C-alpha cells in the first residue's frame, strides 16, 4: 500500500477513476441527447470517449510501471466509501463472532492483472467501436447501440478496476445488463429477445453464486477489499482446504461459470450471437466472458487454499473445452461455430486456472481476446458481405471477393489452431504443458482432453475457413451479386487485430523456446505469493515453479510437437473434407456417423435437457419439471390447497357472518338503533308540522306568532 503522496506524482495514475467515467459520459450523452444527434456526432462522441479512455489507460499503465518499478505492488485509489461507512455504522458479526465494519469503496485497484485487462479491454473495445461505425451504419437505433456499448465499457472498466468484490459486482451486473440489452438489440425479433432473456436469467444464477461467495468471504474474513484479503489469506493463518474458503471459492466459481459460459451454464453464449456481430466480438468473445477468468484469477489466493475448488475448476474447464469443441465441429452458423469455439477456449482458460497456472490462463485470455475478436469481426465482415447470411452451407469461395477479410481471418484461424509463431500457439501450449506438468501430473488426464480439444479446434476452425472462403460459391445469385469487401472502418480493425493476433503471443514466449516470458514475469507479483504458500504447505505441488521446468524440458518439446501436429492434422482433415465443397456437398461427419452427428448437431441435447429439467418448457410425459413445473405445482398447490383452506375459512366466516348479520340487522339495528329513531320519528311528528321546508311556512308561523303575542299583550 502506498501513500497517496507517492501516487500523486503520477498524473494519470492518480486520476485512474476517470477511465470508466469517459465511456460513462458517452453513455449519458446518448441517454439524454442521443435521439436528437446526428449519426456522425454520435460516432464522434462514443468512439471518441473510448479512444480517450484507451489512451488514458495506456498512460496510466505506463505510470503504473514507473510506480511499481517491476515489483508488481498494487496501486489502490479509494475515491470514497459508497456502501457502509468508515465510522462503522454498518457493522456485522463475522464468523468468529467479532464485529467488523461493512465497507465497500468506490476504489480502484491497479496491479499487473488489472493492467492487462485494462489495456486489452480498452484496446479491443476501441477497435470494435471503430468497426461498429461501419457495421452499424445502416441500422436503426444507432445512438442506442453506441450508448449501450459505452455503458458496457463503463461497467467492464468498473469491474476490472474495482478494488473490492462489491464494486466488482456492480461492474459484473453492469456488463450483464449491457449484455442483455445488446443481445436484445433487435428486440423486435423474438429470437433475439428470447436470447437476451436467456442470457440474463442464466447469468443471474451465476451472479447469485458470486454474491454469495463474496458475502461468505466477508463473513469469514471481514473485508471485501482485495488488498486486505490477499495478505490475510497468504499469511498462512488458514489451512489449505479450509471448508469455508472452499465453499466460498466454489460459489465464486459458480459466478464465473455463469459469466464465462462454463458447463453447465454455458447455454446462453451461443444464443447470444443474436446480437449484432460487434457485440459478439466485444462482449461475448473478448471481454465480458473473460470476466469470470479475471475474477477467479483475482481470487487466486482463495482458490489456492481450496484444492477441491481448484480441481473442480480444472475439470469443469476441461470438460467445457472438449464439449463445446465437439459441438462446434458440426455447426453451420458461422457465428455459432465461433461461439462454441469461445466456450471451448474459455474452458481452456479455466483448465489453466484449475491446474494452478494462473499466468497461463491469463495469457490465453489475452491472446484469445485478439484472435477471437478478429474472428468474430471477420465473420461479421463476411455476414456483411453476404447480406446477412450466416449459414456456411450457403457461402464459399469468398477469398477473392473479400481478400482482407479472408487473410485476416486466415491468420486468426492459424492463431487459434495453434500454429507455431502465432499467439494461440504460445498460450495454448503453455496451458497444455501446465496441465501436463502441474501437481506432479495429477491432471494429466486433462491434458488428453485438452489435446483432443486442440485437434477439434483446428478441425472446426479449418472447416469454418474452408467452407467460407474456399470451395465453390453456394449462395443465391442475388447474394453473390452483392458480395463486396467491407468498408475501411471495418477492415482496419481487422488488420490491426490480425497483427495483434500474431504479435501478442510473443509477449509470452516461454523459456523453453528461448523466450523470457515477460508476460508471466509481469504477472508474477499477483500470483507469486500463492506459489509460496503451496511451497510451504506441499512442496510437491511446486510443479509450476521454474526449477522443475528445467527438468521437464524434453517432455515439453514433445508435447509441443504433438499439439502442433494435432493442429496440422486437424486443419488437414478439414481441408480434405471441406476445401472443395460445392453446392451439393454433404456434411462428411453426418455421412460417417449419423447418430454422432445428430447428437453433436443438437448440441448434445443440452438445451432440451434443460428444458425438461430446469425450465420445464418440455414435459416429461405428463409431468412438467423445472421452473415452469414448479410454477405449475405451486399453482396447483395454491389453487387446491391454499385456496381450499381459504375458501373453507370463507365458508365458515360466511356462516358466522350470516348469523351475525341477522343479529346486527334485527337486534342491534332493528331494536337498538332504529328503535329509538322510529320512536323519535313518531314523537317528532307534531314538530314536523311546523318545519317542512317551505320558507313561507316559517314566515307564516312568524306572522301567527306576532299576531298571537300582540293579541296576548293587547288584550291581556
Amino acid at each position, binding site marked *: 500500500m502506498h501513500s497517496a503522496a507517492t501516487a500523486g506524482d503520477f498524473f494519470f495514475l492518480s486520476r485512474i477513476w476517470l477511465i470508466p467515467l469517459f465511456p460513462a459520459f458517452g453513455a449519458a450523452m446518448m441517454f439524454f441527447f442521443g435521439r436528437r444527434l446526428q449519426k456522425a456526432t454520435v460516432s464522434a462522441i462514443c468512439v471518441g470517449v473510448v479512444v480517450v479512455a484507451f489512451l488514458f489507460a495506456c498512460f496510466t499503465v505506463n505510470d503504473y510501471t514507473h510506480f511499481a518499478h517491476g515489483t508488481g505492488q498494487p496501486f489502490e485509489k479509494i475515491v470514497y466509501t459508497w456502501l457502509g461507512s468508515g465510522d462503522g455504522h454498518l457493522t456485522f458479526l463475522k464468523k468468529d463472532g467479532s464485529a467488523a465494519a461493512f465497507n465497500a469503496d468506490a476504489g480502484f485497484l491497479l496491479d499487473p492483472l488489472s493492467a492487462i485487462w485494462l489495456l486489452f479491454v480498452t484496446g479491443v473495445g476501441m477497435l470494435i467501436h471503430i468497426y461498429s461505425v461501419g457495421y452499424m451504419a445502416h441500422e436503426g437505433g444507432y445512438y442506442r447501440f453506441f450508448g449501450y456499448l459505452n455503458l458496457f465499457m463503463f461497467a467492464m472498466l468498473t469491474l476490472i478496476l474495482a478494488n473490492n468484490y462489491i464494486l466488482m459486482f456492480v461492474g459484473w451486473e453492469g456488463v450483464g445488463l449491457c449484455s442483455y440489452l445488446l443481445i436484445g438489440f433487435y428486440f423486435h425479433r423474438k429470437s433475439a429477445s428470447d436470447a437476451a432473456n436467456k442470457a440474463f436469467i442464466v447469468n443471474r444464477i451465476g451472479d447469485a453464486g458470486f454474491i454469495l461467495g463474496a458475502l461468505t468471504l466477508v463473513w469469514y474474513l471481514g473485508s471485501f477489499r482485495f488488498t486486505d484479503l490477499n495478505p490475510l489469506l497468504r499469511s498462512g493463518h488458514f489451512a489449505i482446504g479450509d471448508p469455508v474458503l472452499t465453499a466460498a471459492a466454489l460459489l465464486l466459481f459458480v459466478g464465473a461459470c455463469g459469466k464465462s459460459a462454463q458447463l453447465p451454464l454455458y447455454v446462453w453464449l451461443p444464443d447470444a450471437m443474436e446480437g449484432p456481430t460487434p457485440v459478439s466480438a466485444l462482449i461475448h468473445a473478448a471481454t465480458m466472458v473473460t470476466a469470470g477468468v479475471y475474477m477467479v484469477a483475482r481470487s487466486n489466493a482463495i482458490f489456492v487454499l481450496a484444492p477441491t475448488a481448484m480441481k473442480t475448476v480444472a475439470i469443469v474447464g476441461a470438460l467445457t473445452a472438449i464439449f463445446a469443441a465437439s459441438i462446434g465441429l458440426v455447426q453451420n452458423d458461422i457465428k455459432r461455430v465461433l461461439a462454441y469455439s469461445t466456450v471451448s477456449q474459455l474452458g481452456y482458460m479455466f483448465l489453466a486456472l484449475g491446474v494452478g497456472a494462473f499466468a497461463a490462463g491469463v495469457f490465453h485470455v489475452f491472446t484469445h481476446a485478439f484472435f477471437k475478436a478478429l474472428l468474430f469481426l471477420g465473420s461479421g465482415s463476411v455476414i456483411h458481405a453476404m447480406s446477412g447470411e450466416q449459414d456456411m452451407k450457403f457461402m464459399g469461395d469468398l477469398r477473392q471477393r473479400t481478400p482482407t477479410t479472408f487473410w485476416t481471418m486466415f491468420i486468426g484461424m492459424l492463431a487459434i489452431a495453434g500454429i507455431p509463431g502465432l499467439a494461440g500457439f504460445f498460450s495454448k501450449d503453455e496451458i497444455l504443458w501446465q496441465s501436463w506438468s502441474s501437481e506432479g501430473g495429477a491432471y494429466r488426464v486433462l491434458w488428453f482432453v485438452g489435446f483432443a480439444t486442440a485437434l477439434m479446434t483446428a478441425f472446426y476452425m479449418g472447416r469454418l475457413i474452408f467452407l467460407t472462403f474456399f470451395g465453390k460459391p453456394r449462395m443465391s445469385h442475388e447474394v453473390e451479386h452483392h458480395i463486396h469487401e467491407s468498408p475501411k472502418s471495418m477492415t482496419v480493425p481487422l488488420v490491426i487485430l490480425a497483427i495483434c493476433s500474431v504479435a501478442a503471443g510473443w509477449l509470452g514466449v516461454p523459456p523453453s523456446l528461448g523466450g523470457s516470458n515477460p508476460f508471466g514475469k509481469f504477472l508474477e507479483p499477483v500470483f507469486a505469493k500463492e506459489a509460496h504458500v503451496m511451497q510451504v504447505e506441499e512442496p510437491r505441488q511446486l510443479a509450476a515453479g521454474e526449477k522443475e521446468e528445467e527438468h521437464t524440458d524434453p517432455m515439453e518439446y514433445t508435447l509441443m510437437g504433438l499439439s502442433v501436429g494435432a493442429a496440422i492434422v486437424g486443419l488437414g482433415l478439414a481441408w480434405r473434407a471441406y476445401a472443395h465443397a460445392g453446392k451439393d456437398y454433404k456434411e462428411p461427419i453426418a455421412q460417417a456417423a449419423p447418430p454422432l452427428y445428430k447428437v453433436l448437431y443438437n448440441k448434445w441435447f443440452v438445451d432440451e435437457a434443460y428444458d425438461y429439467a430446469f425450465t420445464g418448457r418440455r414435459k416429461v410425459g405428463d409431468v412438467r419439471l423445472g421452473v415452469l413445473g414448479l410454477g405449475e405445482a405451486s399453482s396447483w398447490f395454491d389453487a387446491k390447497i391454499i385456496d381450499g383452506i381459504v375458501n373453507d375459512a370463507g365458508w365458515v366466516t360466511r356462516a358466522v357472518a350470516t348469523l351475525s348479520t341477522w343479529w346486527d340487522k334485527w337486534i342491534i339495528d332493528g331494536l337498538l338503533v332504529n328503535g329509538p329513531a322510529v320512536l323519535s320519528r313518531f314523537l317528532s311528528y307534531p314538530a314536523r308540522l311546523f318545519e317542512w321546508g*317551505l320558507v*313561507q311556512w316559517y*314566515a307564516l308561523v312568524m306572522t301567527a306568532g306576532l299576531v298571537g303575542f300582540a293579541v296576548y299583550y293587547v288584550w291581556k
Partner: protein
Amino acid sequence: MVPITTLHYLVVAAALFVLGVVGVLTRRNVVIILMSIELILNAVNLNLVAFSRMWGNLHGQVFSIFIVVDAAAEAAVGLGILIAFFRNKETINVDEIDLLKW
C-alpha cells in the same frame, strides 16, 4: 270632509303591509315575493313618515331613508341570489327551493 289625520295614513299603511304579507305568504314566484317585501317596507316607511309628521320631527324621515337603503341592498342581494339559483335550477318557485344545500 274629514281632515286627513295620522290615522288615515296608518290605515293605508296597514293595508299595504297586509297585502305584502299576503304576497309573501302565498305567492310561489320569488320575484313577486321580493316585490311583496318591498310593499311591506313601503308600508313601514309610510308609517314612519306619518309619525314624523305627527310629532313634528325628522327622525321618522331619516329612518325611512335608512329603510330605503336597506330595501335597495335587500333587492340587490335577493335578486343576485335568485339569478344564481335560477342558473342552477331553472326555477323561481319558492316551494321548489326546499333544500338547505344544492
